[in-house]
């Protein structure tokens, strides 16, 4: 298969970027989208042109590293991550636009690579249960209803890729924050810090330049881990209760 690529090239975060045209030739339809870029990069190196920088690691859809906007769609066609897009989804001769995740809180590093360390900073603000190693009680001493455990798992499935932010017109990180707040808040182990966790994580999210939620639901539509936007409602409820209890002072 052959494709016309329009790829965002930008040397670094401070210099301006633009789209550049490339031909992707003789691409097997079984190739993944990132393997197609690998092939293009191999040909670029042989003609002495700087290869296109993009992030990827596990290429199994779980590590959350890959992060492209393909034809205007975060993570491209289909339900998974960028690395799970296969070229058979495109028609021979298609023009394909490739861009980085764009958000103020995700500054660009090079070409299609962005810095998502803001997510780590949000987790740092409270996205954990403090459990000193060695002090844990026997695991089965605390039963968790299967329904709660399953729901917590649905929230915990978030891979931290940032697609929710990239897809949101407000660049909001509410789906990401709500997933962690819900995962931990649904479990009995997570109750002790539940109020302060919600407040601290939301506050840090605001400080880092993410926008607020305006119920566009783009995040839910695009989330490769299928995290539901109902968790945002849960986050709002937790935040309101924490506020009512006076936990905003934390």
């Amino acid at each position, binding site marked *: 298969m052959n494709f016309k690529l329009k790829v965002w090239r930008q040397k670094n975060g401070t210099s301006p970027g633009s789209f550049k045209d490339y031909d992707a030739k003789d691409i097997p339809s079984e*190739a993944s989208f990132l393997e197609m870029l690998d092939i293009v990069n191999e040909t670029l190196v042989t003609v002495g042109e700087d290869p296109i920088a993009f992030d990827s*690691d596990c290429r*199994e859809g*779980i590590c959350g590293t890959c992060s492209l906007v393909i034809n205007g769609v975060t993570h491209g066609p289909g339900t998974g991550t960028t690395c799970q897009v296969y070229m058979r989804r495109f028609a021979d001769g298609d023009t394909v636009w490739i861009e980085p995740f764009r958000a103020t809180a995700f500054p660009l590093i090079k070409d299609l690579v962005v810095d998502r360390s803001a997510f780590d900073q949000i*987790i740092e603000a409270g996205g954990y249960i403090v459990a000193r*190693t060695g002090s844990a009680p026997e695991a089965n001493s605390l039963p968790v209803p299967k329904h709660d455990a399953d729901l917590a798992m649905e929230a915990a499935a978030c891979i931290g890729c940032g697609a929710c932010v990239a897809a949101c017109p407000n660049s909001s990180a509410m789906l990401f924050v709500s997933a962690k707040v819900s995962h931990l808040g649904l479990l009995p182990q997570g109750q002790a810090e539940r109020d302060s966790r919600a407040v601290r994580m939301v506050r840090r999210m605001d400080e880092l330049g993410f926008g607020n939620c305006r119920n566009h639901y783009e995040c839910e539509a695009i989330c490769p881990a299928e995290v539901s936007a109902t968790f945002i409602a849960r986050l709002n409820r937790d935040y309101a209760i924490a506020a009512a209890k006076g936990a905003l002072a934390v």
Partner: protein
Amino acid sequence: MATVLDSKVPSGPLEKKWEKHRGESKLVAPNNRPKFDIIVVGSGLAGAAAAATLGELGYNVKCFCFQDSPRRAHSIAAQGGINAAKNYQNDGDSVFRLFYDTIKGGDFRSREANVHRLAEISLNIIDQCVAQGVPFAREYGGLLANRSFGGVQVSRTFYARGQTGQQLLLGAYQALEHEIAAGSVKMFPRTEMLDLVLVNGHAKGIVVRNLVTGEVRTHAADTVVLATGGYGNVFYLSTNAKGCNVTATWRAHKRGALFANPCFTQIHPTCIPVSGSYQAKLTLMSESLRNDGRVWVPKKKGDPRSPDQIPEEERDYYLERKYPSFGNLVPRDIASRNAKEVCDEGRGVGPSGLGVYLDFSDAIRQLGENAIRERYGNLFEMYFNITNENAYKTPMRIYPAVHYTMGGLWVDYNLMSNVPGLHVLGEANFSDHGANRLGASALMQGLSDGYFVIPSTIANYLATQMGKKVSADQPEFKAVENEVRTRIDRLLSIKGKKTVTTFHRELGLLVWDKCGMARDAQGLQEALRKIPEMRAEFWENVHVLGDGAEFNQALEHAGRVADFLEFAELMCLDALERKESCGGHFRVEHQTKEGEALRDDEHYCHVAAWEYAGPDTRPNLIKESLGFEYVKLSQRSYK
């Protein structure tokens, strides 16, 4: 000077060794801990758990990872589960049984004392992870659920859907972020370790490259902990993440750390078959699928019919036929070898003929499609994405692929290498899995090393280092930093004709062919001739664009491939010198009449630890003999 290996295994009865060792270990008092700086390289299960726990204890920790966030380390991709001898299923499990299964699964090539400790600690790991909020699967009564895995006859595997590694890593990552917030850990993401610095023979620092700015700098500490994973990407195609590499451990090896059993590599039986030369990696389908999937090939060679057209009596469920008591749940090395065997006979399926069926139709008939969807839904979806086939309707096609490496840097019972001050955890060390790792044991070992072993044993070293602080201004640091810079400049100045990936792919094909699922002396000797030629060509003809002082992925890859080109030679040498078959190391010259691995306990019941002797010089082999007091060496049988 010959290095003498002291494993420092405590005396006394097996089940008392760890307790005794902790009782006799040195301590660092809480008020002294902040005076010690610890470098942790790697942020997977072992690294993140170690960094978080050491920080929690009050030490001053710096943690480094090449990924953009510690949450993305490759532990995240582990699917199936984590073993623990909780015996919640009341099916006869015990610490001793987990210990025994692991020793036997490893084909009697691991240390008894280390493995027993691992089995003991498995209990604490589950408690710890539940307390952190890891959402393990549960029964309707709210208690934890289990499933079974290959090589065992009990259900001791805890799991979180098909994403157990992800959930365990996020637990460790969150604990790490808590320590970062508390100020006890400083995190350096997108930072790659490129060398180890020794001062008076002790590991006291590292040289790193900031992958965003290209800045090369040094960090000093009182001790260095490597938790940098395995070397499976030496094969180019593997289930490892693209970034996984041998650089940290190989650089440490070149500074004096012994590399143990490098030929012990694990080929996982259930991966999606290779489809073409453009392919960048292989995708694993969790071993847990073998709980419900049945493995078969047509009885007839080159059978062109689609699987649904092949009647039951013309199918060969070869694992069930040959190993009736374990059936589809034989250990990985045996399942892989048998798949290769039936494909070599010409009975393989799929376009390449290198594939076998993993069929869920019986399980779907018995349990319903929904039950199967609930257990493995994400795996079936991934399979569909990659192959465009619906595994609910037609059997999956699978083939073995490189997955895990049991070999690694040699460590003693304290997880310290022969280089004082250099500790090695998780897949990066050699210690617990012998010649074959059982499923759901990698996560167990990573967390055991990180949460429970190193926080206790590291004090044995640190307590001897009071008042011996080094500074990164010392000449030893500058010297190694200069070597790293020179190497980077050299890589960029070659400007040859071949890309880094071309070299990597060529090397991978060679070692897969000669040092993969089956090895023989002739092939290994051929590989040992060719690898130095490839390496020489690499340093003359590789083309790396751009410069060092910027974000440069080709340069990162070039450095890693340069190290693989050196490491591969050691792996093949180790495979040549181990003239027996054991676990994942199958020498075709050494097999039983039935084609099973034939060990030679008289001559090879040892750890082969290799000492670097200089460039293009044969390394020295140092043996640690393995004593078995509690298990009887026997021919493994899963029949």
